[in-house]
């Protein structure tokens, strides 16, 4: 009961943060010179904002589970690039159909996750180390596979064009995120698997004694995250009409920031999908309003840092009180 209250308190805090940022964005937004409309609130702008944040937000759903188990996955940025390149090659050089190319790309992401999870579970090496290694290795694999080239879809024939025209649509990219967020929220709070995930991060030793299938849970959360990174790679490929082996560099840090701002504790055990969705929205609004106001990229990084620290300080206060 107590932990339920604590969890909700975190959610209330995150929601308050979201509200504050949202109101601030409206106040700070430039207006259209001709019509006096607030640019931030324009439907075009809000949907632009959600679409551009979709890939990171989608991966953050899986990362929430990983972090809840007390783990971390540093390989998601490399995996995103890997799957983007696989999808682009599938559609251009390998002449796969749209469905097969997407499936192959997402499964490639799942394979990276499966490898991560298996090594972590069976070798009992820290997740940080294993996924650091795969972050490096998968980036190399991606560059090797693409021969350091950007694989361009705009000139790769009719099938490729149909692919990116469909999957870069706002309704598709935002819709997929909403759908997956609902699925993962249900998975975490409505299933036995979800309880195992939390239990593992809350108290690993107790989970062992209680006979939980720890290895299977670990393998599952990393595989799910890999699959999501694969999907994010497919969407990035569609959005940029390019399979770029250098995509997603440092994306893992954006993903972790979203999860942390959403109130999930890096110590494991505490956090929620709703929180992660809120975290994704906070970052999305922040980036969007700074962009609309033409704040420089360097200042944006400093502000992101402030927001992350504020979020974590709040977590700390919560747990220590």
């Amino acid at each position, binding site marked *: 009961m107590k932990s339920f209250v604590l969890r909700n308190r975190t959610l209330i805090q995150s929601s*308050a*943060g979201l509200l504050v940022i949202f109101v601030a964005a409206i106040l700070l937004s430039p207006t259209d*010179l001709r019509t006096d409309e607030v640019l931030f609130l324009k439907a075009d702008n809000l949907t632009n904002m959600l679409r*551009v944040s979709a890939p990171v937000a989608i991966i953050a759903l899986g990362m929430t589970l990983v972090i809840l188990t007390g783990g971390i996955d540093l390989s998601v940025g490399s995996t995103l690039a890997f799957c983007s390149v696989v999808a682009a090659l599938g559609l251009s050089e390998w002449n796969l159909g749209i469905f097969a190319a997407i499936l192959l790309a997402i499964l490639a992401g799942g394979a990276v996750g499966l490898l991560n999870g298996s090594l972590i579970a069976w070798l009992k090496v820290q997740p940080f180390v294993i996924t650091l290694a795969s972050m490096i290795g998968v980036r190399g694999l991606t560059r090797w596979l693409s021969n350091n080239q950007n694989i361009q879809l705009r000139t790769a024939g009719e099938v490729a064009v149909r692919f990116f025209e469909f999957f870069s649509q706002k309704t598709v990219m935002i819709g997929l995120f909403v759908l997956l967020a609902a699925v993962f929220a249900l998975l975490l709070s409505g299933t036995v698997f979800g309880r195992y995930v939390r239990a593992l991060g809350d108290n690993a030793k107790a989970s062992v004694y209680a006979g939980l299938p720890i290895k299977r849970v670990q393998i599952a959360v990393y595989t799910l995250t890999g699959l999501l990174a694969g999907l994010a790679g497919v969407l990035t490929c569609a959005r940029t009409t390019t399979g*770029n082996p250098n995509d997603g560099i440092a994306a893992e840090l954006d993903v972790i920031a979203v999860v942390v701002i959403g109130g999930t504790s890096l110590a494991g055990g505490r956090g929620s999908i709703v929180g992660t969705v809120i975290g994704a929205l906070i970052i999305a609004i922040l980036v969007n309003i700074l962009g609309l106001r033409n*704040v420089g990229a360097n200042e944006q990084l400093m502000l992101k840092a402030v*927001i992350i620290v504020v979020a974590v300080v709040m977590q700390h206060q919560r747990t220590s*009180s």
Partner: protein
Amino acid sequence: MQNIERYLSTLAVALLAAVSLVGCGSQEQAATKRLVVFSQCNNAEPYRASQNERFQELFSKHPDIKFVISDGQADASKQISQIENAILQKPDVLIVAPLERSALSGVMGEAMAAGIPTICLERDIAEPNYTTFVSCDNVEIGRLAGQFIVDYLTKKNGAAQGVFVEISGMQGVQAAKDRHDGAFEVLQQHPEIKVAHQATGNWFQAEAMARMEEALSANAEIDVVYAHNDPMAYGAYLAAKEQGRHEEIAFVGVDGLPHEGVKYVEDGILAATFEYPLCVDKAVELTVQLLADKEFTPEKTYILESRSILGKAD
């Protein structure tokens, strides 16, 4: 509840900090000012930083123009999103230095459809979704470098002969391919010039140093090093200097930025560099014309000429 209050007050402080930072980012647009947005693909490259600097310098002479730069941070998705933001603000002219040819075609088409005149800078895009394109010719720069190397060797060795090392930019980048192709178009006419070593420095000084060390170990004699940019030429020079072999080798670079390549040539480090024009002056000139005259239709493409920057000895 106390916690929530504390949370909100901390947030308020953060927000204040944010507002002050944002405040210095931009001012309210005066209704009379014309808005020019420049979407730069990556501020963190010296060539591109020089472009930004030159833009600001030139536009500061036009008080009626509000000029803003957004930084794509070498990420195509980010640059697309920034151009989307720009379209919402309906600038009078949009200038884009694209990160990738394919990725930006769609969103630049949207800008054109919104009736915004767009200038494509230095690199074009897969479809002609721009009003005009200002660029320069890397193959021609390669030819200039190749000819310089032939002339240098002829002067040094009495004939067009000698040992040649090439350090390339990143594989798969058009500029690296063009700078190679242009130089080899000239060099291949002189079979006495021995291509002893070819390596990739990925545009980076540090990597060029490492590759040059290998080239030095493998070759007792080297006459000329041709690097696809000035930082790599400088890296090659540093590697040779460490072994006391820099006097016997001529280092040739490309880019010729004022406080980089030009300075290296002045200091006698590089024998020559070939300017890769910033393209900024022409873009500003076209912007001013587009703003002044609604009827003005620029050419579809402008190709700017390179300039040779040679050391005193030559």
